[in-house]
């Protein structure tokens, strides 16, 4: 009973955010939501299935570009679904390598995909617009446009694209968390965890290891694709530079400091990694330690970068189960 009440309070509060918070917070929140969705996917791949991947940014880009390209041609909702499927197909196509190459070789091989992707996005100007990028068509659902054009006002607050996207983001995040939670404790989820802990044990329990590795890549890429679509919508315009190595690394950091294999941890890691620099920047004026931008000394941007590095080191040294481990103090497992 109290759980339902608590959930209801959280839902109401989250739904009220656009009424109270300024555009900056909505924008930051949307980026965090996009990161949460994609990070859950990577957590399934790295944490549950034990397949190290540095290619996540590539699959995020497939989702983002896929949506931007398709939404001009088919209804945006279909474009969203198609973009997610497209990312899934890209993940499945990578599975011959994923099936053959193991461990750190897989991680670094997948790194190659990010560089190849960047090259393709820069050069396939017909679809991606090259370095100029492409405008992302606004989302619409059964004729309801996610733009400010309809002049919708709620409680005195004009509802523009950010306010509307906020709700789309909430729904997508909720669905992603729900699916992720279900998956972890389901037949395929158990199969993936067994593949991670012992491929031999998995195989002798009737699990087709190669197929499940490919499936893990596919599902994870579909998550990445969905995250990519939301990211594209939050941006309004996407350029190749957004989907580079740094983004891939960020995703891996989210998963590791969140606590590999924990869906909730990945979400927490995503919020931390995405929002930390934005929020530090936001408050840079009120933090006495930081130098004014442009005045030399340690500025907010450098400070947040240093904090990011220090957080990675600290979490790995002192909280090995990541942020998720801090919440659930579990018995230490061998």
């Amino acid at each position, binding site marked *: 009973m*109290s*759980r339902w*009440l*608590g959930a209801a*309070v*959280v839902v109401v*509060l989250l739904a*009220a955010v656009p*009424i*109270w*918070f*300024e*555009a*900056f*917070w*909505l*924008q*930051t929140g949307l*980026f965090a939501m996009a990161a949460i969705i994609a990070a859950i996917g990577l957590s399934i791949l790295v944490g549950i299935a034990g397949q190290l991947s540095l290619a996540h940014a590539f699959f995020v880009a497939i989702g983002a570009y896929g949506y931007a390209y398709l939404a001009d041609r088919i209804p945006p909702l279909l474009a969203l679904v198609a973009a997610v499927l497209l990312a899934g197909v890209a993940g499945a196509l990578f599975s011959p390598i994923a099936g053959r190459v193991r461990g750190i070789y897989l991680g670094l091989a997948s790194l190659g995909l990010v560089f190849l992707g960047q090259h393709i996005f*820069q050069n396939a100007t017909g679809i991606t617009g*090259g*370095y*100029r*990028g492409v*405008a992302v068509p606004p989302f619409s659902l059964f004729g309801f446009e996610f733009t*400010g054009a309809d002049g919708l006002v709620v409680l005195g*607050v004009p509802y*523009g694209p*950010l306010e509307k996207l906020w709700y789309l983001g909430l729904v997508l995040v909720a669905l992603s968390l729900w699916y992720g939670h279900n998956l972890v404790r389901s037949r395929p989820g158990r199969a993936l965890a067994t593949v991670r802990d012992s491929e031999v044990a998995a195989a002798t329990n009737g699990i087709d290891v190669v197929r499940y590795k490919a499936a893990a890549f596919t599902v994870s890429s579909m998550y990445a694709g969905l995250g990519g679509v939301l*990211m594209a919508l*939050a*941006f*309004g*315009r*996407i*350029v190749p*530079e*957004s989907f580079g190595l740094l983004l891939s690394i960020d995703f891996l950091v989210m998963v590791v400091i969140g606590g590999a294999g924990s869906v909730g941890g990945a979400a927490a890691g995503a919020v931390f990694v995405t929002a930390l*620099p*934005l929020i530090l*920047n*936001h408050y840079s004026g009120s933090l006495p330690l930081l130098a*004014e*931008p*442009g*005045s*030399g000394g340690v*500025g*907010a*941007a*450098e400070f947040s*970068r240093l904090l990011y590095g220090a957080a990675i080191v600290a979490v790995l040294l002192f909280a090995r189960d990541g942020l998720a481990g801090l919440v659930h103090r579990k018995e230490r497992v061998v």
Partner: protein
Amino acid sequence: MRRVGLLAVVLAFTVTACGKGGAEEEPAKGSGEQAVKTGPGASADTITLGYLPDLSGVFAPNGKSQMEGANLYWDAKNKAGGICGRQIEVKVQDTGYDPQKAVAAYQQLSGDVIGLGLVLGSSIVNALLPNVQQDQMFLNFAGWTSDILPSENVAIAGTTYDIEAINAVDFLMKEHGVASGDTIGHLYFEGDYGENALKGSKFAAEKHGLEILEQKITPADQDMTGQVSAFKKAGVKAILFSAAPPQAASLAGLAASQKLDVPIVANGPGWTPQLLTTPAADAMEANYFVVSSMAPLSVQSEGVTKFLSEYQAKYPKGTPSSNGSLYAYAGAQIADAALTKACENKDLTRKGVLDALHSLTALDTGGTVAGTLDFSDPASPPGSLVYIAKVSKDAPGGLEALGEPAQAADAEGYSF
């Protein structure tokens, strides 16, 4: 449940702390001559300008010197009384050259500023443009690509990379004996800057029957061995350069070492005085030229002299650069002119400033930017003249202007 309760309290607290502030325009208050209509970013005693440089990403060095230039200008302006009685406040947000951060940074600034004094990078401007248009803000773009045209909101100090490249080809043909049928190499960055310059050089090449040998690189490429070798094999008569200083040093040094003794003409961002401390300094002094609408610091114009003296007073240890601090300085001059004009029009709203900007048809920057600037047509860059300068170890900033700013005849027929 206790956790949820706590969360609710925290949230409620945050909510009350930062309720969504309205951003309505205030009607003209007061009476008589003082009645100036204001909007977001302008009050009775301050005008707030937003700056979105890159302070932590790949162009952080540029970003820092740009902020030096901007601060220099506005500090002096404020000391002299500000603009129509109002002090200018500068709000800076770092973009890290990351469109995602830039969008968030913009959202953070947008409620409080009247316009954007400087934004670095065309991918960032592209990402911001939908919002900027909706907010009717003016935006001073650091980066000279014509991709951004036509946009009502964007102001560029001077001309664009493609026009620079056309002028560069013209210069090579007139002064360095490049003739129809020759091949010119063009080494350019992937992305807006390089590819915009390439558009110009291709236009000029077609017009004059020249061949262009393209070599595209990325900022991560630091060693031009392969590129120089390709140029040498093709027997290029000259090289156009649209990349960054580290690549310039590598290119010039390698060309000299491979006995590829041809002129290299670079766009503005291809130069920094630091290059004179590299081993390639001699090679650059012999063959390196820069085409830019920003004045080389050796030009003795009123604006540049003023800039230099102010700069040395404020940053005795700093090194002024023409596409960093001087550019932001010139950008501030433009913003100043638009704001002043808007104030004269009694309309310090964002729209008012934008209209004021477009009414400037012959803005004289005192020579920091070549020629006078005309902002009336959003479809073409405000300036069309360029300085051509030669590397010289003795000149301030390492560049010595070759003659007065000029414009190649070809540029007239060029469509953006």
